């Protein structure tokens, strides 16, 4: 149903070539991405986002923004610059196949979690990201994302430094006080841990 699958060709011939492509990009992911992001899409490296469970349409959008130099991160821009359209599609399709990997962190503080959940409701995060923050299509899965990365991302949107296709996140955060961001990041990172 998603736009990501929509543009993909159908038919037996292209299914065969897709198979080859998926093997190719599984290998390239292992060689190019895994060192920082982890072979299964979750690493311990600070500031490096979890890719496990991320949606391919969101992933391709971010790779595109890196390639265009619209989203800034030196390492990612350098990696994305030489990528062809087929590369963007191949990497993001592969990322879309990575199953979510839960964090190994200790069970979170229940009081902070319930405050954080109230904030996520109040600031309407669940409006687009869904009640379990798993997103869908162009909306990223943020539940279980690393806390430091979520905090930095929220701050980046709030300051207007992190671009998207639209200013939706910057506008959504415009009225969220900075002091709420820590608790939001804590909640988002630990969603689904306390069971």
């Amino acid at each position, binding site marked *: 149903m998603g736009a990501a699958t929509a543009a993909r060709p159908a038919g037996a011939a292209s299914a065969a070539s897709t198979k080859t492509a998926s093997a190719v990009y599984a290998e390239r992911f292992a060689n190019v991405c895994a060192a920082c992001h982890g072979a299964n899409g979750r690493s311990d490296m600070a500031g490096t986002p979890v890719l496990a469970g991320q949606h391919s349409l969101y992933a391709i959008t971010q790779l595109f923004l890196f390639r265009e130099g619209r989203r800034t991160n030196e390492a990612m821009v350098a990696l994305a610059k030489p990528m062809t359209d087929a590369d963007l599609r191949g990497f993001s399709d592969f990322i879309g196949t990575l199953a979510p990997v839960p964090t190994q962190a200790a069970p979170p503080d229940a009081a902070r979690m319930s405050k954080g959940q109230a904030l996520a409701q109040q600031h309407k995060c669940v409006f687009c990201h869904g*009640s379990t923050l798993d997103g869908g299509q162009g909306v990223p899965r943020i539940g279980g994302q690393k806390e430091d990365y979520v905090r930095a991302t929220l701050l980046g949107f709030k300051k207007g430094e992190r671009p998207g296709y639209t200013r939706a996140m910057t506008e959504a*955060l415009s009225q969220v006080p900075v002091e709420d961001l820590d608790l939001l990041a804590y909640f988002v990172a630990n969603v689904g841990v306390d069971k």
Partner: protein
Amino acid sequence: MHQRRLVSLVMALPLVFACASASAQEAEPGWAKGRPKTDTAMKMAPVPAFPIPTAAADLPTAKLKLPPGFKVETWASGVLDARELRQGDKGNIFVSTLFVGNKVYVLPEKAVDGKRQPKTIIDKTPYPAGIEFYKGSLFFATNKKIVRYDNVEDKLDNLGEPTAVLTDKLPGGDDHSWKYLRVRDGKLYYNIGAPCNICDPGDFAKIYRMNLDGSGVETIASGVRNTVGFDFDPKSGDLWFTNNGRDWMSEELPNDTLNHVTQPGKQHFGYPYCHQGNIPDPEFGWGKSCDDFAKPAALLGAHAGSLGMKFYTGKMFPKKYQGAMFIAIHGPWNRTKKYNGVYVAWPDGKGGAKVEPFMTGFVENNAYLGRPVDFLVMKDGSLLVSDDHAGAIYRISYAGK
């Protein structure tokens, strides 16, 4: 003392209320206003164009269905986020983009080595949707300003600074802030869409026009939620426009509409009070009557995403289509069952219009293979159609008898 405390309390009250209502509204994007709280609806959000053009060999061109005698071919591929189409006097085809591209391209009329390579003439500019060509000048509108490049076809290698800034006072923002432009009789027509799904729009939700130097701004139509397609009937000179209906009321209502301006500046087309001419808004409709607003000429489908509109002024198509309106139905995002296509509409001479599908086949397994946006009638009478989803431009021609 007692009295002073009372006064300060009274003065503080409106402030408290203002804060309270601001916090109730905060963080909800404009497009999500009025969205029901069910899981299905909560997962629907505007889907931007795919960031990669579909490879030429994978375009849906061969799957598209047209009336007998018509033929569609791929005219250009690899045109990321292709939106509005206009042609210069020297043949150059201008193509704008929206969220993804941040660019305006120019393409040659004639293919070079069997291909038309888009050349970027405006880059790194958010909301670069509004374009119009008139007497050698390119008019270009973002969500914030409208500018003019004179003799544009002589400086395609480097446009430089605009010749004139017509206005830099447009309201900006996200929701419905992108532009559609047409010039008619020395006036530039443009839209300012509602800054939300449903709200009291103030000076938004109107079609305006201005002189070609930016002076003399006038309202042409009010109560227009968002039009991204309008054109003038070559016979009567009247303005017709498509209008995107409100979201979230239900899967099947209200419809997008096709509208006919018969009294420029005097008509109100209903938003936010009345939808599709006969449905009072559940919130803003109280105390209003649909009878007080201009009725649509035709309904175009629920959440259709009716975009570009063009009267067919060519001679290649059969008589039946000469003087008809072609309408690009982009297809819904906030409706479970997807549909889209190119529609055609004929004024019925009584203020209404008859609408039927003209080119379909862009939807497979409830997913879009392509999404039509805008049109250009070529000198030979063929019709170009842009597709922002697949990043392509198609050419429709007629070879029947």
